[in-house]
């Protein structure tokens, strides 16, 4: 099973929730009418796409259908696919890594979205590509967060730089970057404490981590990945916006797509804030991560 098949398999639930709803709406109808479009809107809203984005997608499908003189409801499906892809973009958004090491990736997000787990998975992912990886235990706040990251570092076979619980996260980042330079590590993954995007003082702390990184390694952090739980509703847009403003988010990792959550929030975020999804998490095992490819994602959803 290639990556495509695997993704499709993983996204069965998403497909059920999303495309099949659309499909069921379409197949119940003989003709295209207002009521049908309204039901399609509802289906998108139920997938967490958000009201504004849903209305826009349907409005465009409508005008395209008119343009192309689509008479049969089944002709609407490819149009939907086209519209979602238009918003998500067709290309995989590449990681912005610098020409010379170390590349620094900062992971941020609200509590419990999967930052630490994703770092474990990414460390493994990059190790497989032959890269040397260091992880920074900069969540010095949550109880046993350091122990948790340690387990993941061991599983991935990478080194961890840590201090005691309660120490200054910026100091941990500083230490890690020094070590990365000394050891010529290719990649540094920084775990941060979960925080709600509205806590201004905690967002300041993230800005400080950014500043420290930039001082030690020019251009760092090269990627700031916002980890978003796929079950999150419209608040994910606020997360992307406020974390984006404070830390310059460069991409999103959408986790927990193995559940029944429909992942439509990705569409809303891309549309509202133009932040691309770079990886998706599909389980709790170390290999349950893959780069996000919009075309495959939409194909997996619609076919």
């Amino acid at each position, binding site marked *: 099973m290639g990556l495509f098949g695997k993704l499709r398999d993983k996204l069965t639930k998403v497909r059920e929730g999303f495309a099949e709803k659309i499909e069921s709406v379409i197949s119940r109808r003989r003709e295209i009418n207002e009521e049908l479009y309204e039901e399609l809107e509802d289906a998108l809203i139920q997938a967490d796409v958000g*009201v504004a984005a849903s209305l826009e997608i349907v409005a465009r499908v409508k005008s395209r259908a008119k343009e192309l003189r689509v008479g049969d409801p089944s002709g609407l499906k490819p149009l939907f696919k086209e519209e979602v892809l238009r918003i998500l973009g067709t290309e995989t958004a590449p990681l912005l890594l610098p020409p010379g090491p170390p590349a620094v990736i900062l992971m941020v997000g609200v509590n419990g979205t999967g930052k630490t787990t994703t770092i474990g998975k990414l460390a493994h992912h990059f190790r497989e590509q032959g890269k040397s990886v260091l992880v920074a235990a900069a969540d010095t706040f949550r109880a*046993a967060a350091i122990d*948790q990251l340690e387990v993941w570092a061991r599983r991935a076979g990478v080194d961890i730089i840590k201090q005691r619980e309660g120490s200054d996260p910026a100091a941990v980042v500083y230490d890690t970057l020094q070590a990365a330079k000394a050891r010529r590590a290719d990649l540094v993954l920084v775990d941060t404490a979960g925080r709600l995007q*509205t806590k201004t*003082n905690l967002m300041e702390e993230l800005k400080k981590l950014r500043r420290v990184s930039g001082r030690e390694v020019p251009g760092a952090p090269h990627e700031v990945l916002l980890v978003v739980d796929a079950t999150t509703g419209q608040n994910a847009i606020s997360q992307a916006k406020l974390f984006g403003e404070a830390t310059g988010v460069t991409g999103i990792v959408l986790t927990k797509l193995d559940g*029944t959550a429909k992942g439509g929030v990705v569409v809303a975020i891309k549309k509202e804030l133009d932040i691309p999804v770079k990886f998706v998490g599909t389980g709790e095992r170390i290999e349950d991560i893959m780069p996000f490819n919009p075309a495959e994602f939409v194909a997996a959803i619609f076919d």
Partner: protein
Amino acid sequence: MFSSLAEKLQETFKRLKSKGKLTEQDVTAALREVRVALLEADVNFKVVKDFIARIRERAVGQEILANLNPAHQVIKIVRDELALLMGGENARLNVSSKPPTVIMLVGLQGSGKTTTAAKLGLLLKKQGRRPLLVAADVYRPAAVKQLQVLGEQIRVPVFSGETDPVAISVAAAEEAARKGYDSVIIDTAGRLHINEELMQELEGIKAAVKPHEILLVADSMTGQDAVTVAEGFHARLGLDGAVLTKLDGDTRGGAALSIRAVTGCPIKFAGVGEKLDMLEPFHPDRMADRILGMGDVLTLIEKAQSTIDAQQAAEMQKRLKSADFNLEDFLLQLRQFKKMGPLENILSMIPGFSGMKKLREELQFDDRDLLWTEAIINSMTPQERRHPEIIDGSRRRRIARGSGSTVQDVNRLLKQFEQTKKMIRQITSIEKGLKKGVRPGRFPFIC
């Protein structure tokens, strides 16, 4: 992006009011906007559908349309129906007549079970009970350690050891009976409601220890899927209630509504901060106000009463209401708020505050801001504090020099003060409108 429901409704109805009398079409158009606002607050789609149908039925009734102020009437109907959907009164924990009472926490990964277990432990301990925490999450790396660390912080013992969650739970219940713990709180591993094997494990724990209370711990930021998840857990385990976490952010928390509306399980507690004492009994009517963007005045009052003495609180209310609310009051109020916890939490409980986006951005206070505000106000003469309107350019320069800040800082402070004053006036008028027909004393703060 997230203008509040109340704000939206008021806009809608202001537009309608300019037309004079309302027709049924007007109401339909307005309800369409209500629908959008609810969906933007992540209220479940099907719940919204039923809800709108019910409101329409009530709102199209003669009395409303003929009323001089239909906007307020409809907002009131929406609010009451919201509170009803969420279950009216606060629901308490089940307590076993024969101790120990066993409480089991279940939910998706990352929803906040471990923290909630510790918070609940602390809450029960403060009520004079003797809780025992049980670390039954043997899967997530360092989950047991996390609970142990938290247990130590609140000085509540943590039971751990075996590798099988069912065995751990049974052994813990026995230990509790033996050692006289009257409450057992089981922290289980996060899991997907569609994971057959892990759901069976929960059924196994349930069968073995017969918990008196199975609580679903749900993230308040959950979207449309909240209902599916809650139904999934409810079908397998028969939930007794839910705990809503991470309510201290800017989520409107529509999931709360939906869980209760769909499963019938009351929401018993709400997590409102990372600190372990930040777990509050859940009050549906107050949550309705929050979803509407009307703030949570009652919680604010309770907080004020527990941190400030009654006389001071009464004084504060009076000042807030009075037309000559001045900079001295402003400073006093800021200081008192500060004592009640993070300022942003407190401010979000003020009616209308969460809806006023611009104001919210301007009022981003933290500790440093408070010091700075104090410094500036302290550099003013008493006369200036009581009559801010006399503060002209040269006074501003003097105040800036005296407090080691800039004229811009002084300008900003004065603007914030003006905004606050405006907000209070606005709220007062909203409340006055709402008060008609609302049970007396609903908004003791400002009526």
